[in-house]
Structures are given as structure tokens and as C-alpha cells.
């Protein structure tokens, strides 16, 4: 029991550190990629190749002046960014990061909690993710912030529906809500994306919307709303909002890789005939490569596509994504019935 608790503590703090580190360097990678797309260099002053840029940004954010509007709701104003950060970090608990480690004849899974409803757990956390933005936007007592918060909430509710409907078809095929089972079924190259390409596309689009990433970054649309929901935020409180966005991106890339691209599975994995420990480590790196790829897709889309207009966004969500997702569920059901 003691070893079990120790192991879980080490694992969860490791994952926490990993998501923070990844989020930190995503900011640098994003700026480098933006530079690449716009034919410039990107940050390269701090350290070799600009590697110390995230540190410099972090230090800058910490030392900036804390500012709070006079008319703000003090408690909620602080609660907003804290909640956003907390919720962003909660999701990683249910993701299987690799196979089982075997130490001293005992199996240690590389997953903090194998909940039998893992995928629903992730959706529950995603669905409450909007609270931080709404609370922050409202508590600032600023019209632009409020508009951003309201946009965020309606956007998230709309896209959540299509997202869950896209997942239902995957769950119908797998017959389980546990992420571990879903990954185990995609052994080798038997990935879900070959069977459910439509569901994957819907999920991808909705993931952009759920992370408030361009082309769906209307809650913080700077051409219309100054800074959107974080107009009134400064210093590390703003840093939390920005940081949580990168963590969310990392986690949604991980969920995408897990659900549709086989998680830690890779082709010809049976032919290697390695020990389970080596397989677990390789599996982790394979999953990480997939996550990096999806992170790149996120940035690629952001620096290539223009922003949607709000009515276009709503129309896309309700009139295209949801009917398409329902159709996908029905077709999946019919195919399963025939087989």
C-alpha cells in the first residue's frame, strides 16, 4: 500500500512537471513556428537558439505590476485564473502514458488513475473548464471582458456537444469507456482513425474551439475585444490564463493521440520482442512524438487560418458539426449491427 501511494505520487508529480515543462516550451516553439511561417527568425536572443526565452518570459510575468480594477469582485477575480490552471492540470490523470512497468515482479501502469469511465472524466473536466474564463471575465467588471466570457461560454457549450457525439462512435466500436481499453484495442497499427476518420475530424475542429485557439479564438479576439476575457489581467494572473491554454493544447493533443492514433502503440511492436520495461519507455516516447505532431498541427492552423466571424462559428457548430456527428453515430451503429 505504501509503495503504491509512493509510486502514484511520483508518477503524478512527474506528469505535472512534464505538462508544465511542455507548456513552457510550447510558447517558444509556437513563436519559432510563427517566425517560420512569416519568414523571420523568431526569438533567438535569450540563450542559444532562444532556449532561455520561456524563463525570461516567466520572470517578466512574475515581476510585472499586479493590477486589480477598483470595481472588480476581488475573490472571483483571483479565483478565475487559479481555477483555469487547476482544471487544465486535472485532465492528465486519466491518460495512459505508456504500457506497464515491471519492477520486482509487480506491474506498475504508467497511468495515474485507470477509471472505468476515463473518457467521460476527461469530458467532465473539459466541460467545467469554461468556468475560469467566465468567472474571470465577469469579475473584471469590464464590458470587453464580459463579452469575451460570454462568447467563451456559448462557444464551449456548442462545441462540447459535437465533441462528445464524435467520441460516442469511438466508444461504440470499443465497447468501453476506459481509456486503457481504448488504447489496448488499437494494438499495432489498428488505430481508430482508420475506422472513424469523420469522428477524428470533428474532434480536431472541436478541440481547436475548446482550447480557444485560432481560428476559434473569439473569446480573446484582440481586433474586436481588446484582450477578451483577460483584458483586465496583468502579471502572473494573465500568465496563468496564457499558460493554461498551452497545457490544454498539450492535453488535447494527448487525448487525440490516445483516442484516434493508438496512444503508445506503434506498428510492428510485436516483432521487437523487448522486455516490458523497454516497451513502456519506447511507448511513452512514441506517444510523445504523436503529441508533438498534434501540437504542431495546432500551431500550424493558428498561423495559417484567419479567424471566424461569430455567427459563422455558431453556424459551423450547430448546423454542420452536430448533424455530421449524429450521422456518424448512426452509420457506426448500422455497421456494428451488420457485422
Amino acid at each position, binding site marked *: 500500500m505504501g509503495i503504491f501511494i509512493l509510486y502514484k505520487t511520483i508518477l503524478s508529480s512527474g506528469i505535472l512537471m512534464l505538462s508544465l515543462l511542455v507548456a513552457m516550451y510550447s510558447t517558444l516553439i509556437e513563436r519559432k513556428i510563427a517566425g517560420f511561417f512569416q519568414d523571420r527568425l523568431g526569438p533567438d536572443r535569450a540563450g542559444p537558439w532562444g532556449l532561455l526565452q520561456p524563463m525570461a518570459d516567466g520572470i517578466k510575468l512574475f515581476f510585472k505590476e499586479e493590477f486589480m480594477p477598483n470595481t472588480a469582485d476581488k475573490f472571483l477575480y483571483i479565483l478565475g485564473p487559479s481555477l483555469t490552471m487547476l482544471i487544465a492540470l486535472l485532465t492528465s490523470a486519466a491518460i495512459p502514458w505508456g504500457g506497464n512497468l515491471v519492477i520486482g515482479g509487480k506491474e506498475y501502469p504508467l497511468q495515474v488513475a485507470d477509471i472505468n469511465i476515463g473518457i467521460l472524466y476527461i*469530458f467532465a473536466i473539459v466541460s467545467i473548464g*469554461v468556468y475560469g474564463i467566465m468567472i474571470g471575465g465577469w469579475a473584471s467588471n469590464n464590458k470587453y471582458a*464580459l463579452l469575451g466570457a460570454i462568447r467563451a*461560454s456559448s462557444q464551449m457549450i456548442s462545441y462540447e456537444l459535437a465533441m462528445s457525439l464524435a467520441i460516442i462512435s469511438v466508444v461504440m466500436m470499443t465497447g468501453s469507456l476506459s481509456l486503457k481499453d481504448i488504447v489496448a484495442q488499437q494494438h499495432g497499427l489498428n488505430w481508430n482513425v482508420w475506422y472513424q476518420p469523420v469522428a477524428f475530424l470533428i474532434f480536431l475542429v472541436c478541440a481547436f474551439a475548446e482550447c480557444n485557439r485560432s481560428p476559434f479564438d473569439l473569446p480573446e479576439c484582440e481586433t474586436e475585444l481588446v484582450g477578451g476575457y483577460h483584458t483586465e489581467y496583468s502579471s502572473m494572473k494573465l500568465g496563468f490564463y496564457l499558460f493554461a491554454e498551452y497545457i490544454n493544447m498539450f492535453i488535447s493533443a494527448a487525448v487525440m493521440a490516445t483516442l484516434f492514433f493508438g496512444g503508445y502503440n506503434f506498428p510492428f511492436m510485436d516483432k521487437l520482442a523487448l522486455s516490458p520495461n523497454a516497451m513502456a519507455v519506447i511507448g511513452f516516447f512514441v506517444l510523445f512524438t504523436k503529441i508533438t505532431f498534434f501540437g504542431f498541427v495546432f500551431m500550424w492552423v493558428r498561423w495559417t487560418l484567419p479567424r471566424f466571424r461569430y455567427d459563422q462559428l455558431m453556424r459551423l457548430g450547430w448546423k454542420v458539426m452536430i448533424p455530421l456527428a449524429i450521422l456518424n453515430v448512426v452509420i457506426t451503429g448500422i455497421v456494428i449491427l451488420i457485422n
Partner: protein
Amino acid sequence: MMFTKYIFFFLSILALYSALMVLMSRKPIHSVLYLTLTFFAIAGHYVLLNAQFLAVVHVIVYAGAIMVLFLFTVMLLNLNKEEVSPKPVWIKIVVIIAGGTLMIVMIGIFRGYDVALKEDPFLTQIGLVKNLGRVLYKDYLLPFELSSILFLTAMVGAVLLGKKEQI
């Protein structure tokens, strides 16, 4: 398990406190947020009863969707005024009588209820999604389908009401 007991008490106190604060908060936004907190505390109780599916669906549906819409509406209405206009006396009397009646009914219900624990208080596996699905789609298929139709009707009604009138 002592640990579960402590969690139970913590969640119960949290649920009661936040439910009270829903009524006592001055700002409507605070009330809505406290109501969300109540839902989380109740979801925690479901987890303690090993009904994880119910807990998660509770969070998704209530905290994730319904309360967000509530918050949305309250924010748009801008009910931010601190002072609440004092109610006339007769309204207070009516409220007290109505509330008291409800309390009498509740007391009546709980007095008639056998609180003594049964031999097997609850089956630990009953809340898992497999068993729940089996029960819903086998034993209670008709009520389940009927309530689905009810929801569908409500949805169609809402869409119809929300539609702009075409003259």
C-alpha cells in the same frame, strides 16, 4: 474506513453550506457559483457510493452545461445591484406558510421511512456503467424510452419557442 467517513462529512458540510449560501448571497452570480459547488459536493457523494458514472454525468450535465447557461443568463441580465428592495409583509407571511408546509411534508415523509440499515446496504457494483446500462435497457426500457420522448418533446418545444416568428 475512517478516511471515507471524513470525506463524507466534509462533502456533506460543503453541500449544506453552499446550498445555504445560494439563498443568502447578495449577488446572483455568487448564488449561481455556490449552486455549482453544491453540485460538485453531491457528485462527490456519488463517487463515495461507487457510482462513478452517475457522478461524472452529473458534473457534465449540471455543472458543465446547465449551470454555465445559468451563469450566462445572469451575466447578461446584469443583476448586479447589491440592494434588494424590501418585500411587502403579506409576501413574507405567504412565504413562511408555504415553506412551513413543505417542511411538515418532509418531516412526515422521513418519520414514515424506516431508517434502519438493511442487511446488504448496497451492492458495490451497481453504479458501474455496465450494470447501470443493463438495468436501464432491460428492466426499465419502457420508462427510459418514455422519458427520452419527453425530453425530445421539450427540445422541439424549446426550438419552436426560440424561433423568430415568421409572418
